[in-house]
């Protein structure tokens, strides 16, 4: 046992050295036209050695360390506690949620513009993650190209407004429906595939959409993207300093207040908030409906589900389509918030981040997913100076989660169904 651990720890330390020394230990320095290779300074070398030592130590005492940490975290987290009485829990939960919602409504009037902007982004990610949660968490379909539907929503709005002058409110349902249609069309051929194959094909689809957008230069502007996407209006009132479109009035003049660029940001935030709440409520409802149960049943045991008369294609397609619908929703809001979109915003990394949110939050759990969306979006902004290491931190967080809490931050809890007693 100990010899085995020692061997393993040595191996890990050597690997650490082998990987980190060439990456950190050498620098390419440009001298005039040549580039030369120089060794790193002493501190870096010491750090590399230290890292290897830490890895060695951790691997050597791994069982004990992991054991203690699991012991520490166990009692604190909900799953093992005595279950609260069902009605009381539901009541407390709804109070807390209402409280949070009221806070979220008034909060933007007291903080800086930057935070409101960030919060809007968080809300967009919440919508995306809730949508993907349907596909991955509930229906169990690994979709790595989810960002494609997000792109469809965003580009629908951008193109419609560029060429036809369609407003945000018109584009919102159109974008979502078009994304859903894409989901349906892609779903048809693809949903026969299982697990890994499905993941690969959806990954490919995501890339195809992005590359198409990149190359259809005369329609989408290619890598240059599309700018000048209008902000939403409030009953025909615009939020800009000057009215852009005929027939509209401007918000600050109507209400006789001074113009402030913050109005626009706050308005967008509120729209995103309302849409995110709608998304959450609708999906929550779906989960308690026959469709929602069918998604889970098919994920749990496909053969049994089919033997009970559930059509595999119909159930999977519905999950895929509904997921895509909400991505389209989020895409439209995103386009409006940025005012400018390009294929850059819809790379694979984006899909990966949304997927990570779902996994971190706990597959199928709405609260968990919302918490994870907040964490994943805000933490990198708070730790700006670490931005280079963002992916590293991200990866480390994922690994840690998988080791200690593979079921996610807040695992999905089953709803309690009251039955009438039989006489």
């Amino acid at each position, binding site marked *: 046992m100990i010899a085995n651990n020692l061997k393993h720890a040595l191996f890990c330390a050597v690997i650490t050295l082998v990987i980190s020394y060439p990456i950190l230990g050498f620098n390419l320095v440009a001298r005039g036209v040549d580039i030369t290779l120089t060794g790193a300074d002493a501190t870096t070398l010491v750090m590399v050695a230290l890292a290897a030592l830490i890895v060695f130590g951790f691997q050597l005492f791994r069982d004990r360390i992991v054991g203690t940490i699991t012991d520490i975290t166990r009692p604190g987290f909900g799953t093992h506690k005595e279950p609260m009485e069902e009605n009381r829990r539901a009541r407390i939960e709804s109070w807390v949620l209402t409280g949070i919602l009221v806070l979220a409504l008034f909060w933007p009037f007291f903080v800086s513009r930057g935070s409101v902007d960030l919060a809007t982004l968080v809300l967009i990610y919440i919508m995306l993650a809730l949508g993907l949660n349907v596909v991955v968490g509930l229906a169990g379909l690994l979709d790595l190209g989810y960002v494609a539907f997000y792109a469809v929503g965003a580009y629908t709005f951008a193109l419609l407004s560029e060429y036809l002058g369609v407003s945000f409110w018109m584009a919102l349902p159109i974008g979502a429906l078009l994304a859903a249609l894409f989901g349906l069309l892609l779903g048809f051929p693809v949903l026969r595939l299982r697990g890994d194959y499905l993941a690969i094909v959806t990954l490919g689809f995501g890339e195809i959409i992005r590359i198409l957008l990149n190359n259809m230069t005369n329609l989408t502007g290619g890598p240059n993207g599309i700018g000048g996407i209008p902000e939403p209006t409030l009953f025909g009132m615009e939020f800009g300093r000057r009215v852009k479109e005929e027939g509209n009035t401007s918000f600050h003049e109507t209400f006789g207040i001074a113009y402030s660029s913050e109005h626009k940001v706050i308005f967008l935030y509120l729209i995103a908030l309302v849409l995110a709440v709608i998304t959450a409520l*609708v999906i929550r*409802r*779906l989960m308690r*409906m*026959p*469709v929602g*149960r*069918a998604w*889970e*049943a098919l994920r*749990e*045991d496909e*053969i*049994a*589900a*089919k*033997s*009970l*008369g*559930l*059509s*595999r294609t*119909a*159930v999977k397609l*519905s999950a895929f389509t509904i997921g895509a619908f909400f991505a389209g929703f989020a895409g439209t809001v995103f386009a409006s918030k940025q005012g400018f979109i390009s294929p850059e915003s819809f790379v694979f990394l984006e899909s990966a981040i949304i997927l990570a949110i779902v996994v971190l939050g706990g597959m199928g759990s709405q609260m968990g997913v919302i918490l994870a969306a907040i964490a994943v979006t805000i933490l990198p902004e708070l730790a700006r100076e670490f931005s280079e290491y963002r992916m590293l931190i991200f990866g480390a967080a994922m690994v840690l989660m998988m080791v200690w809490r593979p079921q996610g931050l807040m695992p999905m809890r*089953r709803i*309690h*169904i009251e*039955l*009438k*007693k*039989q006489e």
Partner: protein
Amino acid sequence: MLEVQNLSMRFGGLLAVDQVSLDVNEHEIVAIIGPNGAGKTTVFNCMSGFYKPTGGKILFQGKEIQGTPDYKISRLGLVRTFQHVRLFSRMTVVENLLVAQHRHLNTNLLSGILNTPNYREKEQKSLDRAAYWLDRVGLTDMANREAGNLAYGQQRRLEIARCMVTEPRLLMLDEPAAGLNPAETKDLNRLIISLKEDYNVSVVLIEHDMSLVMDISDRINVINQGRPLASGTPDEIRRNDDVIKAYLGEA
């Protein structure tokens, strides 16, 4: 009501089922018995649409159903259980029973989101039916447990209840007594007879437990190495020399 004519199923070089025929009438319990690997489950898999048979016909209420997709066959009222219990183990017991009643989901998406009275009424009906069958198989206290946490015998009963909430015409049970203790087997015995008597469901059952088979079956079909060996009433089968030889030879 069900007629299987010269059913054959070939897996590559292996002829797992060879010219098997059987029929089931309304209000009847028919057993299929045979040694391990005889092809009993394969016959079920063909009947429930999991396999497309390589030969023969299956008629259900006069309609040919061989090769029809599984979920459609189940909607016709031909529902089965599995040799190895297949529950939705991370869903609760009630949810298992609700899912079984969800074959037409696309029609009520919007009314469900809006929670219309019509939708609520339908949900309540499903719930009532679930509650009824939970009571019937004695699982009411377990209603909100995860199905995977039930004891084995309870899982077996839940699987039967899950079939019954779909209101089938014909129920196919694949070794329902496997892994049950004698008391549980006796309960199962009574349950199956009551399915026939009180709910007018015909039953086809595969079973190794001879006392159960002899007790409740109206007719028995014996299969050996994919081929039909004998068929008749329990008394005829008990006296049939071929059957005795096949079974004793095995044992």
